[in-house]
């Protein structure tokens, strides 16, 4: 790109170009042509939570929770109180006076839990002196309770009163939780998934562990609900397991290996010789049918009903992918430690007869190799026919550090947060321009002329 300036970096540049993707500067499908940088944090921003159509909260290692207006980029309130970094944050809708309010629950390394009112900026509730710091939070709307997961699992009611808790499990603690039907909760603890049951009798709630699912070979990195009947977990070594939500049996097992194929260029071989390809499943997202897994620096799209891989990119980013999102009509987004957000589109592959396709097919030798017999054998049959390609349609470059996560406000824009302490709101420039025009004409009318 800037080789004429850089000179020395030329060699590396070519590697990058062949190894990762290079879309170039012409991005007609990328509508984000306007950005606004939001400053306010003093350390890594790790969490973004949407409060309503207009507002979102950001939190990170500086212990600050900031509430922003997505349209104007205005800082609405600063929620101060946590002494150490924030480890989890979630929104909590409750009904007060007939209206639904949205509050924020935050957990911090200072072993406190707080409930905030984003309208006023007040800390409504606070629990301190917990036995361990909370790593994840889960709101159970049906029971009007919420669950915090640390070294033990605690159940709280809306008034921040501890209802019950489990015994101390392990030092690694609960890293993720999902809600299952019939008041069950699946919690990821190191290599196991533990199923808890919440027994509700009147106003009392009791919790008990029902089952330990120990099918993963390594630490579970992500745990999500796919749809009403399935949930998925991904491990550090690329194991992706689909579980039945009701009887907790394995529905599908994929082991993503990202193995090298012989047809690749020399540079690539050298690269793999140097280091083991990262294949940890950092993040997953699903729309009930498709499931996207961030595997190392690659992306993996899985069709849940067909139990087959749809598309994949072994190297989608220059570094580990941290967050993914599935949008409608086969669009997806990913962000990575390399500081970029990339937008992808699932496209049908060209016909196999075309010469271009052979190279592409050569790229994937082994993937999704099933090693468990639970996996239906039918999977191998349509292996090639259902495959689509993941095409890069645009990238957003702005952050100078890893992009931790992003939240989409549909047409209002996309918010990204990063290690560089910044938040960026990306907007559709054309749409914004039209909105501004309307605002101008409105003001013109108010002023009755220029």
């Amino acid at each position, binding site marked *: 790109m800037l080789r004429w*300036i850089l000179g020395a970096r030329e060699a590396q540049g070519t590697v990058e170009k062949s190894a990762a993707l290079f879309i170039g500067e012409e991005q007609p499908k990328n509508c984000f042509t306007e*950005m606004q*940088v939001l400053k306010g944090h003093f350390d890594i921003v790790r969490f973004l939570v949407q409060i309503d159509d207009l507002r979102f909260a950001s939190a990170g290692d500086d212990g600050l929770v900031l509430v922003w207006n997505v349209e104007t980029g205005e800082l609405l309130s600063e929620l101060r109180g946590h002494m150490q970094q924030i480890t989890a944050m979630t929104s909590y809708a409750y009904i007060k006076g007939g209206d639904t309010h949205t509050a924020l629950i935050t957990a911090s390394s200072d072993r406190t839990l707080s409930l905030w009112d984003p309208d006023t900026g007040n800390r409504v509730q606070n629990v301190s002196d917990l036995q361990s710091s909370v790593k994840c939070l889960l709101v159970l709307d049906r029971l009007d309770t919420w669950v915090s997961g640390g070294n033990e699992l605690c159940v709280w009611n809306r008034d921040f009163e501890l209802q019950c808790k489990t015994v101390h499990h392990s030092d690694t603690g609960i890293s993720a939780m999902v809600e299952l039907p019939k008041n069950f909760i699946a919690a990821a603890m190191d290599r196991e998934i533990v199923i808890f049951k919440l027994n509700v009798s009147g106003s009392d709630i009791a919790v008990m562990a029902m089952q330990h699912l120990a099918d993963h070979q390594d630490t579970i990195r992500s745990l999500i609900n796919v749809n009403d009947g399935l949930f998925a977990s991904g491990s550090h070594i690329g194991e992706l397991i689909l579980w039945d939500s009701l009887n907790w049996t394995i529905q599908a097992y994929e082991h993503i290996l990202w193995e090298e194929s012989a047809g690749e260029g020399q540079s690539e071989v050298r690269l793999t010789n140097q280091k083991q390809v990262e294949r940890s499943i950092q993040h997953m997202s699903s729309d009930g049918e498709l499931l996207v897994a961030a595997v190392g620096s690659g992306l993996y799209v899985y069709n849940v009903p067909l139990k087959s891989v749809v598309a994949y990119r072994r190297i989608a980013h220059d570094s580990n992918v941290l967050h993914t999102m599935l949008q409608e009509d086969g669009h997806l987004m990913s962000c990575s430690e390399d500081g970029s957000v990339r937008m992808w589109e699932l496209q049908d592959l060209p016909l196999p007869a075309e010469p271009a396709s052979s190279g592409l097919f050569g790229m994937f030798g082994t993937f999704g190799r099933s090693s468990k017999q639970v996996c239906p054998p039918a999977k191998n049959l349509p292996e090639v026919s259902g495959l689509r390609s993941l095409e890069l349609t645009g990238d957003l470059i702005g952050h100078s550090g890893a992009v931790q996560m992003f939240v989409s406000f549909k047409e209002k824009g996309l918010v990204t947060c990063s290690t560089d302490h910044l938040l960026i709101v990306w907007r559709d*420039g054309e749409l914004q*321009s039209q909105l501004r025009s309307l605002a101008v*004409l409105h003001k013109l009318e108010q002023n009755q002329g220029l």
Partner: protein
Amino acid sequence: MIGSPDLVAFTKEDDFGESFSDPLLLPEEFSVPLFNHTTNANPWTKTSYAKFSKDFILISEFSEQVGPQPLLTIPSDSKVCGTFDLNYFSLRIMSVDYQASFVGHPPGSNYPKLNFVEDSKVVLGDSKEGAFAYVHHLTLYDLEARGFVRPFCMAYISADERKIMQQFQELSSEFSKASEFLKLGNRKAFANELEKKLKDLEYTRSVLHKETELQKMHRGCYSTQAIEKANELANVEKSIYEHKDLLRQITSFPSRKKKDMDFVQCETEKPTEISAVDDTLMCNSDNSVKSVETESDNRKSTYTPQFIKAKSAKCFDKRLKTLEELCETNFFLQTLEQLNLVERSFRGDLCSIYTSQINRALLIKQRVTSFLFEAEADWKDETSKNFSISSNNPLIPILNLSGEPMSLDSYTPCVDVDRIKPSGEYIEVSSTSDITQETSEAADTETKGSFGSDKSIEVFGSVSPSNLQSNYLDGLERSKVSSTSSSEDQKVGKMSPKMTSDGSPPKVFGTENLVPMDPSCCIGQDGFIDEEPLPEIAQECCGDTVVNQEPLSLLHGDPALQMDYILEDSTLAGSPNMRLTFSELNTSGLSEEAARIHIEDVSDSTSYMSTSTSSDRAASPFTYGSALTLKQKKKAGHSALRFIRQYPFAHQAIFCLLSGRTLVILGSDEGTVRKLVNALLIFVPDLGKYGDTVQPWLSTPFQLTDLQRWKLIGLQRAASPAGSSILYSLNRYSRYISILDCDNKTLRCPPYKGTLINHMADHRTQIKRGSTYFLHVQSLLTQLTAKALLYTFCHHIHLPMDMNDQGSVTSRRTNFLLQLGYTVEESKIVQYLSELIKEHYIQGHSKGVFSFNYTTSYLYKI
């Protein structure tokens, strides 16, 4: 730019032409009439017989001791006046002070009465000297002066009669401001003086009373001494009464005009500024002044009254107060500042003053877009306010260049509504031919009816504001009244804590002096009660300080005093580049503007001849905290001219700037980079008053937020670790920026197709002068801005037909721009400008949104 004299040529057609009105013609009020070529080939030769080189301001006094004498000139440089006889001219201008500022014992009144007289404004001409003057008479109060008044006058002296006549309105309003400062300060000082005098008198009375009592005891009631003492006592009593009455009068100074509030407000709004000026001046001036100040602080509370002897000193024995003493130092300095401003703003030929006035008036009208490319005016907003054009009543006075005698009616003296003086005392217009004197020869004046003892001096009439453009001015005044009166109460309340809450007049002077207070007076009084009366103390220490020296005629005065004035002047002038030294230039009678053009011309063309040698000339205009002036921009025009000649990819670079893509100028040599930044400066939209959107030299890696803020960046190329991180940031944000590498002479940027920038930056242009090129660019940018304005405020292209109509809006917008004849790239420029206009219109400033395009860049080489 708009109204450039050579561009705007509009003359009135014959009668038959009136039926057809060309829609493209400028409205009449914006037109600048052509110079009449038949009478004279060279427009400046007429002024050649004047004995001074350029216009100046003269302050004179009619001293009761020595008669009319000049006090000071602005600029104080003695070269300005040349051989012009200031003493003589002072005599002339003071001799027409017909103002009957009667103070003393009016018939039917027992006490001396102060008259609050309006200043009079007269136009005078002295054809023998080749001088014409706007003369502003005013009177200041002085307890020691005859009749308590000291007549002063300020005169704007020019060789161009038309300038005086046609700028009368502006001169009048500007000089009124200066006069208002003087009078305000004078009232304070006078009240202070009266108070002290009263204390003295009361002390004297008590002493006399004691003595009388003593004598009564010793010698009985009817001894001669006792009677004498009693008489003396009675005199003192009377005197006390008179002075109290005077004090009442001065403190209840009526606010005849709400307009005065403006000055009062603007004065009170910036007290820190005044004191700052004060401080700096104090440092520069004699130390004794400072010591006086500090001394006065101590004395404030403990003023020891003095015994006043029955017989006052002889008129010619006493030393008259200087102007500075008469009206406190702060106000005096403010006046000088104002007068300097006046002198600066009326410099140059009438034509250029017109042009700039029209320009300014038009700029005020287009606030929506003027922030884009227009240079911030050198003047303060406050002054430019006075030049606003009302659409119904053109500001520009009717020009009488055709040689026809102007009808008498237009200059018939008439009474200003709020003047106290009866109209009968106004001087008559001597003759019609005098008004149109510029068309006649100087020799003709001998035969004409003229005024005064000397035939060469004419009074053209005392033109009151109401007859030039009464409608316009009335409107202006009305609006001013309405705007000020609303804030008046609040202001007064703020400044005078003594004001009672219900708004009733405050009582200040004890029970025996229940004087209804006027708000404007209140403000003044607040000052003189709470503040330290400086001038009086200064006066007490007279004799051993420089300040108290009698002002003498400057032409023949002692050089030390002159130096003092120069010193003051330079501190007040502020920016030294505003003042040009004419020592190299012969005083050939060229007007100053012409001379200045000449200087620029010379320097420009020489540097044009040898571009290589002039590398040091293009100094960066950026000095932190100082506003970019038009002059600096014009100089930048010169660099820009060189840039477009040297670099074939100048078009692309300019395109980047105009379309809002940040241009980074990368180089290892700071001078080269700065020069390029300077050259490209004039193409940056929304440059900001201080050039906020430009970073001329950066040696640290830039951030994303910097791209949002700066649109033109000079960046250091270095081999250090910092340099590599700079390169990294360049690489990372390469899609948002264009990079001009001045070491390798390459430019990496998106392509540009179109003709617009070819016009703007033709490398074969015949334009040789930087300022001309700047104006050329400005005119094209103005056109562009007009299109952007049209695009922004055109309803039908932005309103969706229905809710789900976003796509059609986009296509309508694109088509609109294509119909305007813009290519895709030029459309981007208009769109960017339009976005800026929108943001500016909606919220008055930029929100900090950074917009960009995803386009491929190419590498251009020389």
